[in-house]
């Protein structure tokens, strides 16, 4: 499983950091997403799918 983030789309709502803090964080400068783990363990897939759905600006992609 691979995760990518699109900073041009991100609006810093923090839904990913709230849902899967093991994988996503937010920049102190911009509030935008920081990808902590681009290849997270498979057992996090449901949570990452949920975060992808909750992202208000379609900034996350799960490959």
């Amino acid at each position: 499983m691979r995760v990518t983030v699109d900073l041009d789309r991100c609006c810093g709502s923090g839904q990913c950091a709230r849902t899967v803090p093991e994988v996503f964080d937010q920049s102190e400068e911009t509030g935008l997403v920081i990808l902590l783990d681009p290849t997270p363990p498979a057992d996090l897939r449901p949570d990452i799918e949920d975060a992808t759905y909750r992202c208000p600006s379609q900034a996350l992609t799960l490959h």
Partner: protein
Amino acid sequence: MTAETVHTELPPLPTTRPNPFDPPAEYARLREEAPISRHVWPNGVEAWLVTRHADVRALLSDTRLSVNRFASPPPSLSLGRGSGVMLPKSLIGMDPPEHTPRRQLYVRELTVRKILRLKPRIEAIVDSLVDEVARHDPPVDLVETFCQPIPSLVICELLGVPVEDRADFQKHTQVILGVGSDAGRVQEATVALMDFMRELVEYRRREPGDDILSRLAVAEVDGGPLSVEELVGHGMLLLIAGHETTANMIGLSVSTLLSHPPALAALRADPAGTAAQAVEELLRYHAVIQFGLVRKATADIAIGDVMIREGDWVVCSLASANRDGRACPHADQLDVHRPPARQLSFGHGVHQCAGQNLARVEVQVALTRLFARFPNLRLAVPFDDLPFRTDAWVYGLRELPVTW
């Protein structure tokens, strides 16, 4: 209005609730039969009403819909109390690209991590208010003594309002948000708050502190600082946006839990383990922006069976979307045990509430601390006598008399 946009046969916007906790029953029929359909609003303006979860989600993240409502009067209730004072433009009236760098100045202050760091302060504020309530002889109105002061004191903290000014600050915000305030007093209080905010902005430009307003005052956007007027606009938005919504959500949540004993018992049995999920469900159950979010189409948009035309008003009903069985099973039931609800009460798209992480924690702390302190908390009037804000843009309770 041009001749071809006059459709006198259009139905009026459904607004009648079957009971205080459920949105108009008509929404359920619309979701099945006419999920994106035109209605006439109380002020005579026509708009598309979007009622399904998936369509609301898609349209709120569609960049062809604008938040700019200045060119012509948007659909409204015309029952609202316009203050007569035009607030300076802020995030909620800006589309990208103007919106993009400014939003970052907000969201960096309200990240999940920063709100976690702030949580002990929120707990201290809530605890001191709970102590204050306990010093009264019941019955006590929780709206005035608890629900409204929480967001007010938290925003003072975030904005860096000096401690000695907080009483005045709270007094003015109470007038602005009070449903019973007359237009003249609202206008006076709005002007007073804007003057206060302008002074605070100018002071923080000279002497920045460790707060949002100070960092906004020294921030650069497109190579220059923001104007004082714009900073006043941002300060007022931060003040007002996080205030009325959060206060009303706390009041609604308290009254809902008092009316749903199993849900309250679950929260009381395991506050730490249940609060986040329970608040997520309460947010789904009650979309306090009860009539929805207003947008304007800047292009023709084909969606479902309809064609939204450039220039049309579009209202995305958050309350209906949250009760859509396609997105949430048995959606009309409050179920604090369901997996974290997929709710749209904070909106969707790049304008999704910037303060949602803060609001969640404020409501969670308010509920857990209040119910822990008052094990016998109950309504001091029959449920049917509770005064709900049926005609206000932000739904909630005018008063919440409780005893213990």
